């Protein structure tokens, strides 16, 4: 086993109901080193949230089929039974969610919710758990921490709630933190505080982080590596600087062009025509081809493999070698 925190190979996740099969994740492979931050970038329907939840096997058990190889912190998550999985969740891997108002139990205090996690995974007494809960609230920089232990979620503002959720997630010092758009619902000044807090905590606790977002700016601010997701696949992956400076895949380029950031005013934004494909009926070839200005006949028969001008920065596009040359020109 290598030293990687996460090893995913050819991960497939589909939701099977009587009426249809939705192929949400179609062959995702990546590694995550300890202390590394990976941002999965994508829009709605790309499969990014499903992938994240699959890393904890948190998808609804009845309908979900997970195939492929997935090792997190040395544990094989595809083969593991529910018992082992519930031991791993919260202790080795933890997750924070987008909307803390709905993600926290409304009728329990914050202190109780933190304590509950600690007592579940660690053999300590209640007093010790309470002490650690207070420590955690201070770690996430919640003012008046002692008072907030007895507060209910609805009594706190959005930023504080999100910090509380982070405290709950970190209560058992997980090795991997999963974050599903944790700052999307927050104000701008609070968002940057939370992002910086997460970076700081990652360094302090030595965690790996996988962050799902649709906001390129967020990726730019905290990621080491970025993976762009479309129709259940990584269509581009690479170090954040290289990917944002010189994107290889037409979809990534489209996202960058569509994201408002200092384009001259009055100039039209680049848009990506069309809509994402139906995950029940994926095309055989490149899923982005119907919307791609550079598409040609060779894109259709099969899904392009990942390739790139340098190791570590690759994209699923048959034109990529050419793009590499274009970039130099």
């Amino acid at each position, binding site marked *: 086993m290598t030293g990687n925190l996460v090893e995913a190979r050819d991960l497939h996740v589909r939701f099977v109901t009587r009426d249809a099969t939705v192929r949400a994740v179609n062959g995702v492979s990546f590694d995550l080193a300890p202390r590394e931050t990976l941002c999965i970038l994508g829009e709605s329907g790309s499969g990014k949230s499903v992938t994240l939840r699959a890393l904890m096997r948190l998808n609804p058990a009845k309908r979900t089929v997970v195939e492929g190889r997935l090792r997190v912190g040395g544990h094989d998550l595809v083969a593991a039974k529910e018992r082992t999985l519930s031991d791993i969740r*919260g202790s080795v891997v933890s997750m924070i969610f987008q909307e803390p108002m709905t*993600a926290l*139990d*409304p009728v329990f205090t914050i202190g109780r919710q933190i304590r509950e996690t600690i007592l579940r995974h660690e053999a300590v007494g209640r007093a010790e758990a309470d002490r650690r809960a207070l420590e955690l609230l201070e770690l996430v920089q919640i003012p008046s921490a002692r008072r907030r232990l007895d507060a209910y979620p609805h009594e706190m503002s959005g930023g504080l709630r999100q910090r509380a959720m982070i405290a709950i997630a970190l209560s058992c010092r997980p090795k991997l933190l999963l974050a599903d758009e944790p700052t999307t619902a927050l104000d701008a000044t609070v968002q940057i505080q939370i992002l910086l807090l997460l970076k700081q905590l990652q360094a302090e606790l030595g965690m790996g982080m996988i962050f799902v977002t649709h906001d390129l700016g967020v990726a730019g601010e905290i990621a080491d590596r970025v993976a762009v997701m479309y129709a259940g696949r990584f269509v581009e992956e690479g170090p954040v600087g290289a990917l944002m400076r010189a994107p290889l895949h037409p979809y990534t380029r489209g996202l960058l062009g569509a994201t408002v950031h200092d384009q001259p005013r009055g100039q039209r934004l680049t848009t990506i025509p069309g809509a994402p494909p139906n995950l029940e009926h994926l095309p055989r070839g490149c899923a982005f081809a119907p919307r791609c200005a550079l598409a040609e006949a060779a894109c259709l028969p099969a899904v392009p493999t990942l390739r790139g001008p340098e190791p570590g920065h690759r994209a699923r596009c048959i034109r990529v070698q050419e793009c590499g040359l274009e970039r130099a020109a």
Partner: protein
Amino acid sequence: MMFYVIRRILYAVPIALSVGLVCFMLVHIAPGDPVNAIVPPDAPQAVVEQVRRAYGLDKPLPVQFALWLGHVLQGDLGRSLATGRPVWEELRGAVANTLRLAVVASVLGFLIGAVLGGLSGVFRGRLIDRAATTVAVAGVSVPHYWLGMVLVITFSVTFNVLPAMGAGPDNAAGWGWDWAHIRHLILPSVTLAVIPAGIITRAIRGTVSEILGQEFIGTLRGKGLRGRTVAYHVVINAAPQVLAVMGLQLGYLMGGSILVETVFSWPGTGFLLNSAIFQRDIPVLQGTILVLAIFFVLVNLMVDLMQTVLDPRISRA
């Protein structure tokens, strides 16, 4: 919080008064001169007038109400027109009997409802959900007096294992929690439990199912909590709504089911109300309705306060 409690208690007072007024008025709106219940039909007019004056039935209505209210607040509910005994004496035994029946039926109904409702909420859409829902709907739809009679025919007549009527052996007054008395309680409480069981099944099913669909359940699983702990969270979240329904059901049952009590000759308030209505025994009617309504108001108050304690989102202002 104290303000809230005091305010809720104070709200109960005008409600109780209004209830008293309504039941006072209802009785007088009904056709039939109450005096005719007391004096024989061929009594001379002078005697009729005398009786009327003696019972205060000649005074204007608002005065009658004020007088009645004054007496009630002193604990005097008047005397029964039919038997001459103080109303409170008639009521005491009946209320106690109805309460016993109501509480036992409620507990039974709640238990059944909780089990069926919990199962169908968790396994929504599956066979067990459909089975439980069918049972619940049947429970609510079946006329309970008919069910009572069926039970009597089955268990008392055919198999002769349980008594068909009364609240104790040989209808002796007084109650004891011994088998001789409890076996009289079984059939009527099962009969009465069926409706609350159905209603609570549906209520719990809906609440549990809604809670299980909420996002924080995913967070709980994500923390590695086991099924038992998640169930605990669901119960606490569901409690305010479910307890409200249960409280109301208890309130209804305490009102006494005239039909079931008649079927089983259970000497409770329903039975009492039944005869008082036919006899136009106004004091008994008023007293009984008032006492039952006060109980209901109290139960509602308890439910309100309990909800506030259990659900931190309800403002305690």
